[in-house]
């Protein structure tokens, strides 16, 4: 039931719930959950942020789902980025050392190559993800959604009992 509601919310997010900017912001925040290892302090902070700020929460979930496999695929790249930043770049050594010995900061696991590499990767990718998502949602709503709604398939689905069942759980 929860999954069905989530799917409804995702469809609603794409179709009409929120402005393209809110959806894109949600996607950008959600991509952090997917690109970086989930159980980390920064993701907790981002989740609280997503709850509190008026962005599309279904889009956050969508971003998480879409970017989780990308995160797995890019782990070797993140590992190299993290290793370069933490170990190879001697200019940053004193910075990392002071962070490591500052209360709370080490709890963020920043000193793990994958965590740091993926976080940096996300920071770099967040802005392109935001703009691409914003463009994509606008384009979808302008070009794809009207055609979909006019299509015989969607009309047939909407007339079916399955759709009636779906509406029972629809978020309005």
């Amino acid at each position, binding site marked *: 039931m929860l999954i069905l509601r989530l799917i409804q919310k995702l469809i609603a997010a794409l179709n009409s719930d929120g402005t393209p900017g809110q959806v894109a912001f949600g996607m950008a925040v959600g991509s952090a959950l997917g690109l970086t290892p989930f159980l980390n302090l920064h993701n907790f902070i981002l989740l609280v942020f997503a709850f509190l700020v008026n962005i599309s929460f279904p889009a956050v979930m969508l971003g998480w789902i879409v970017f989780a496999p990308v995160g797995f695929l890019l782990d070797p790249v993140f*590992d190299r980025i993290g*290793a370069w930043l*933490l170990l190879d770049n001697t200019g940053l050594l004193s910075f*990392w050392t002071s962070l*490591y*010995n500052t209360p709370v900061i*080490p709890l963020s696991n920043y*000193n*793990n190559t994958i965590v740091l590499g993926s976080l940096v990767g996300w920071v770099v990718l967040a802005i392109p993800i935001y703009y691409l998502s914003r463009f994509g949602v606008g384009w979808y709503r302008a070009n794809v959604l009207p055609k979909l709604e006019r299509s015989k398939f969607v009309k047939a689905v909407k007339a079916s009992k399955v759709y009636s069942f779906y509406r029972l759980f629809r978020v309005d």
Partner: protein
Amino acid sequence: MRRVLRLKAIVPLGLLLALSTAASAMFMDKIVEQAIEAVGTDIVGAKVELDGVEIDLAGGSVRLMGLQVTNPDSPMANLFQAEEIVADIDPVPLLEKKILVDTLAVRGLRFDTPRETSGAVERPAEQTGLIRRRIDQWAQRVQVPAFSLDGLTGTVDVAALNPDNLATPRAAAALSGAIDSSRTVWTEELASLDPQPAIDSGRALVERLSGASLISLGVRGAAQSLDQARRTLSEIDRVRGGVQELEADVTNGVDSFGRQVRGLADARNQDIAAALSALSIPSLDAPDISPALFGEVALARLKPVLYWLQVAEEYLPPGLDPRRRPGPNRARAPGSTVEFPKESEYAGFAVRVAEIDFALEEGPAEGNYTMLLNDLSSAPAVHGRPLQVAVGRQGGTTGPSSIRAHAVFDHISEISRDSIGVGLAGVGLPSFVLPGLGTEIDLGSGLNEISLVRRGDSLSGRIRIQSDNVSWSRGSLGTGRVNDIVWRALATLNDVDVAIDVGGSIFSPRVRVSSNVADAIARNLRQELEGEIRAAEQRVRAEVDRLVAEPMAQARASVAEVESTVSRVVQGHLQQLDAVKQELEAKIRDLRRMVPGN
């Protein structure tokens, strides 16, 4: 305009966080238990299990109950188990993800206890058991010589020596082959240089110009002769350069071959030693006998000491450089986690004071003990104080009458300084069979001392086993004159003193074993059998000499031949070229005076 904040989400979010915190507090004991088991299993490479964990956040204490650490080499036994471990933890460093234990008390520690189920893990990490494997590999490389009296009890059959097993003939044949190849190459090079036409041409010109004057040559003729002399000199210089290079090659080569021929004498000595060993003719030198008799005992005593030194090296690394270790186990790749230690801060893990009560239930050191640890730290340079360990005996009906055990692992500076001193008096010493003899020795009770010092890479120290109440049993030692001599030497020995001297480094130590047992055996054999052993040795030496004489002579002859042919020919050419060059240069000086402007 839409609001930026979702105000209605604040209350549910607060409730969610409060629920999460409450759930974490409720399940914290279980979470910590599982974390300790997982991390411990990763480090040990075999199951680490706990019966339970109690965490008192307000009091800052942690109590671990029923700890079992499986022996990775024997999964049905525990390396150790402890009934209870209580740690008082300083809460402030936890904010930096560091653990500082103020006091640690371990009760009911026992070693090598049986397990009900196997503690093996399916896929141990690569690093698991690495130190133990490294030490075992080192021990396998140490060659404990064999000791046998067979060569003295039977007839020495020197004809049984196999020439194919001797290294000298092989080395000599290889050397002769190398000399032949070099000679061929040098001869071909000399032929391609062909200095004789240049020498002849130079000589002819010098002869033609001898007695020539401006009147006989004329100005034009003198100028032409000068040109020709210069061209000839240039050609001689070119040829001479080539011959000089060849001469350097030949000289170096001949020198090298000479050294290798002299080195064959060492190979011959090694062949003689190998032949003596193969024919079981023992050395009568005590330093050769001790490693054969007590080499295995020495390795068995030294291995645990090396193990703990290397463990300290691994887990108490000196210095303040960033440290890389594998990241956590998770669905995502683990990556590497880097620690950035800093002086005067908290170490990643430190225990200020630990008191460990343990019992040895079996073996010669049976009894109850207390170990005091001060300043155990994963980053000694950060912690600023060396780890100190002291062990005292609390009681027991058997076991050593007195014990002195202390160790200091000072890894604060880049140069590690470790020292271990252990002295067990009145401790039960092992019984074992002397290798090669079959005689059984029961060392009774006595003194076992370990004294080791490590400074940087250098390791030095001594392990000593001493007893004055030894008993002997003839065991499988045969009868006959030689065996009886050995038995008389051993049976009268009441005191045994074995010293294992250690040098080198902790990763590649050198071991030297000495003992009064070997002295006694050597002395008795020497008194009664020296003549016979020397005679047998002479026969073996003579046989080896006979087998290696021809190839050695052949190698020497090859070097002499190269010296007398190629080397001398090349040097002869060089001398001729030098002589012609000097004469030509003199003629050129004369001609230049005849030709204006030259």
